[in-house]
């Protein structure tokens, strides 16, 4: 039997308090992907790392409860759908696939310029959502402790974490 693992109060306090800052930084990285280092993938990884930090300090179960399985399962296809959706809308409006300028129907050159930027940010957000969901799923599935194995999917979420 494993010893009950109790993480230091200092580490738990600092980790909990730094989670919102990590998530804010992830949004910053996504928003600046267009004109600086960063972008959807990096932002998504940073966003997911906030949940991984919680799992490392508070235990697997409590970390997973912040982003339950149905949520991360839904995020993965949602981001891909947003990406493909923006591309298809551009296609339906008479442009090419992912040709953002055609999103501004009947607009002047300035509107097309604006549509280009918004379309780009839109697909970046889509990438972010998918990557964040995938990273969270990858980590939590690989780090699943023994006593969380072979538990029926429905019941898993309501089981208290014996480590906590």
């Amino acid at each position, binding site marked *: 039997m494993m*010893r009950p693992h109790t993480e230091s109060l200092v*580490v738990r306090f600092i980790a909990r308090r*730094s989670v919102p800052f990590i998530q804010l930084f992830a949004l910053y990285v996504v928003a600046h992907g267009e004109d600086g280092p960063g972008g959807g993938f990096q932002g998504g990884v940073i966003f997911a790392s906030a949940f991984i930090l919680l799992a490392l300090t508070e235990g697997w179960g409590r970390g997973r409860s912040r982003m339950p399985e149905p949520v991360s399962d839904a995020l993965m296809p949602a981001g891909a759908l947003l990406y493909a959706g923006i591309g298809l809308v551009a296609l339906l409006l008479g442009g090419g696939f992912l040709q953002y300028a055609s999103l501004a129907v009947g607009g002047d050159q300035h509107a097309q310029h604006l549509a280009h930027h918004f379309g780009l940010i839109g697909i970046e957000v889509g990438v972010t959502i998918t990557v964040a969901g995938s990273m969270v799923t990858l980590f939590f599935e690989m780090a699943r402790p023994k006593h969380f194995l072979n538990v029926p999917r429905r019941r898993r979420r309501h089981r208290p974490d014996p480590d906590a």
Partner: protein
Amino acid sequence: MILLDVLSALGLLLGTLILIVTALGVVRFPDFYSRLHAAGKGDTLGLAFVLLGLVATAGLSLVSLKLVFIVFFVFVLNPTATHALARGAWVCGVRPWRATGEPFLQREGQMTDEERDEVVDDHTGGA
């Protein structure tokens, strides 16, 4: 602004000096805990001096604000990470080094070697 340039140069020099001493400590100290002691403190202070020197160069701007944020977070998070590492090593039974060469006996709250092996087996599935 000659004063700001001097301040910036002082900060960069002092920070670099501290970082060199830190690197020396990490290489030369005998065991995990004393190396962590060098790395945890030296890194934080050295980085802070270097970044504050850069703030003096950048003046009042968005870049300075970001640098100040980095200094703040490093000051909070670096000691926390060091604390977590040292505590983890202690719980897992890493014994401190002794100058006299006498063995450091296992203390309260430390795992024995057998217990640690058991935990490792638990996590790797006994592989």
